[in-house]
């Protein structure tokens, strides 16, 4: 039996493509969580990004405006979350849930007139190099700019957190807002910015879905990817590089399902789909039972409000 080596390359490439929105949203949420804020609104911000990107692309015809507009929309919607949790000191969990529910609703309202409109073709880079190297060619070349950005983002994020001063400030705010505040750091401002950044990345993840991955608008098209992105952050133990691995596993399981169905393998699809969630729970248990490990990896003030009395 001859296995077409380029076919394997294509499968790997499609796994990577399905991992892109997960990587983007998770890396954004990771920064938010590292600053001590738990934003459960990823799904909502993502779907707002998806409709904003698609709508702007259809109306203006400009892909650049659409991509940046989607990120801006993510920022705007996350401003609601930031204002509530940071200025009005509301509960993170409840506010994040409200954001997701609100986002899904409002996106469907905006998207009413965009259902059934075909998307535009998104330009890909290095298309001509695709066939030059077997196996590697289809993996490395012929993807959109967002694809390449997503696969460099974990490394940038890691560098940012470990090596830069601002990264250190973000971690300090997340691990000990009191001492950070005593050092003269404006905790509220840092958290605001981290939340807005998370919004921008979720917005971009949404735009990738509606403009590049399945170029059209479908109600509720994020289909739980925002929740998976949240799980991925935990799965990674707040380490951006591990997000890359996690996203490939989650993305891989989605893609493999299609192929297994095609071949007729008899493992129930639902079991495979459930696997990433179960694995995430197991990872959570493993890192949580060791109190030293969880203290080393989890931002200590995650999900707790910080209010400096005047």
């Amino acid at each position, binding site marked *: 039996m001859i296995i077409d080596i380029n076919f394997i390359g294509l499968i790997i490439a499609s796994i990577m493509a399905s991992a892109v929105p997960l990587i983007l949203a998770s890396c954004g949420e990771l920064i938010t969580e590292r600053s001590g804020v738990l934003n459960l609104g990823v799904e909502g911000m993502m779907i707002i990004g998806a409709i904003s990107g698609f709508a702007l692309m259809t109306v203006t015809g400009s892909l650049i405006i659409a991509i940046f507009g989607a990120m801006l929309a993510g920022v705007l919607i996350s401003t609601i979350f930031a204002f509530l949790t940071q200025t009005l000191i509301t509960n993170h969990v409840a506010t994040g849930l409200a954001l997701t*529910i609100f986002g899904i609703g409002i*996106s469907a*309202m905006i998207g009413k007139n965009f259902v059934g409109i075909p998307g535009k073709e998104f330009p890909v880079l290095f298309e001509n190099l695709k066939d030059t190297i077997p196996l590697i060619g289809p993996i490395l070349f012929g993807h959109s700019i967002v694809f390449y950005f997503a696969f460099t983002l974990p490394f940038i994020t890691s560098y940012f957190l470990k090596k830069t001063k601002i990264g250190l400030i973000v971690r300090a705010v997340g691990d000990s807002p009191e001492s950070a505040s005593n050092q003269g750091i404006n905790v509220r401002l840092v958290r605001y910015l981290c939340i807005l950044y998370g919004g921008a990345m979720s917005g971009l993840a949404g735009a990738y879905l509606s403009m590049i991955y399945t170029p059209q608008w479908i109600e509720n098209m994020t289909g739980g990817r925002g929740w998976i992105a949240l799980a991925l952050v935990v799965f990674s133990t707040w380490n951006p590089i591990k997000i890359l691995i996690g996203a490939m596993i989650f993305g891989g399981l989605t893609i493999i399902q299609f192929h297994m169905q095609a071949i007729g393998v008899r493992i129930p699809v*639902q079991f495979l789909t459930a696997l990433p969630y179960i694995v995430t729970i197991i990872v959570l248990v493993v890192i949580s*039972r060791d109190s030293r490990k969880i203290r080393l990896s989890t931002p200590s003030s995650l999900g707790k409000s910080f209010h400096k009395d005047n």
Partner: protein
Amino acid sequence: MIKIVKRDQPSRAIFFFTPVLAIFLTLVAGGLIFFILGFKPFEALKFFFIVPIADKYGFSELLLKATPLCLIAIGLSFCFKSNNWNIGAEGQLTFGAIVSGGVALLFYEQEGFYILPIVILAGAIGGMLYASIPAILKTYFNTNEILVSLMLVYVSKLILDYLVVGPWSNPEGFNFPETRQFSDSAKLPLLFEGLRIHAGIFLALAAVIVSWFVFYKTYLGFQMKVSGFSLKTAKYAGYKGKKMIILVFLISGACAGLAGVGEITGPIGQLHREISPDYGFTAIIVAFLGRLHPVGIIFASLVVAITYLGAETAQIFMQIPKYTGQVFQGMILFFLLASDYLLFFKIKFIGSKK
């Protein structure tokens, strides 16, 4: 000039006033959104909030939707009061429905008075079993209950999907993803001829009464309240924290499981893929809007149930997407959380000196 002053004590009057304020602000903002989208705001609001419950049938539908919301929210209030963030009620509902549905299918083609109680009990146990997973992981492995309970929602829906497509699918059902219809003895009796409202509402009312008693008349209720305020105080007072965490999760799971039973043995009558329009998540809003108070939750469940009905009516009459209901649900929670600021802070208007 405006000055913000911290209150010495959270204001009790405002505690019960802010939900009303939140609903009012939601209506104003909703009208504004309709206006921006090019609908007549008052007409749209009328289709959303008045038309659906204007007749007997509509009112029955309102109670039908409010029943699971109320039941789940009551259960969640046990968790939330004691600082346990169970946000996976949707999963507990689904798993409760799976277990009770499985039992109901065992009795398919059988009749008997004993069937329904067994089916209901099975649902409560199913919900409890499923809720015990985040509870046990939290108490013994220190695992974050928010994430675990959330992950389990997806797992439960996939289990349901597997069962109704595969082993439990109706053999005479032409491969539709659904089970056999339950026998009449496994269905909750209807209260009125021609209306869909069923006896499940009594389960919700019973939960309201029991929870009121537990919250305000028992030692457990007091312990929950103290733990909710400060876990350190609770520890100092020597409360058995682990036991309480597991207990509140079990109560919450049982309520969600019962809500699941109510859906499949009530209006649905079988198991299929979509047994709940996210009641488990929406009930979180209900619990907050009702201020974790049993009576408050009754009112809140009615208010939030209207958003479900309103969305359906508005979709039919005005071609507004049905997801608009979620816009209102999200806004209610936003405004409620925002106005909670008034609980802890006073806004003082200081007149400038002449």
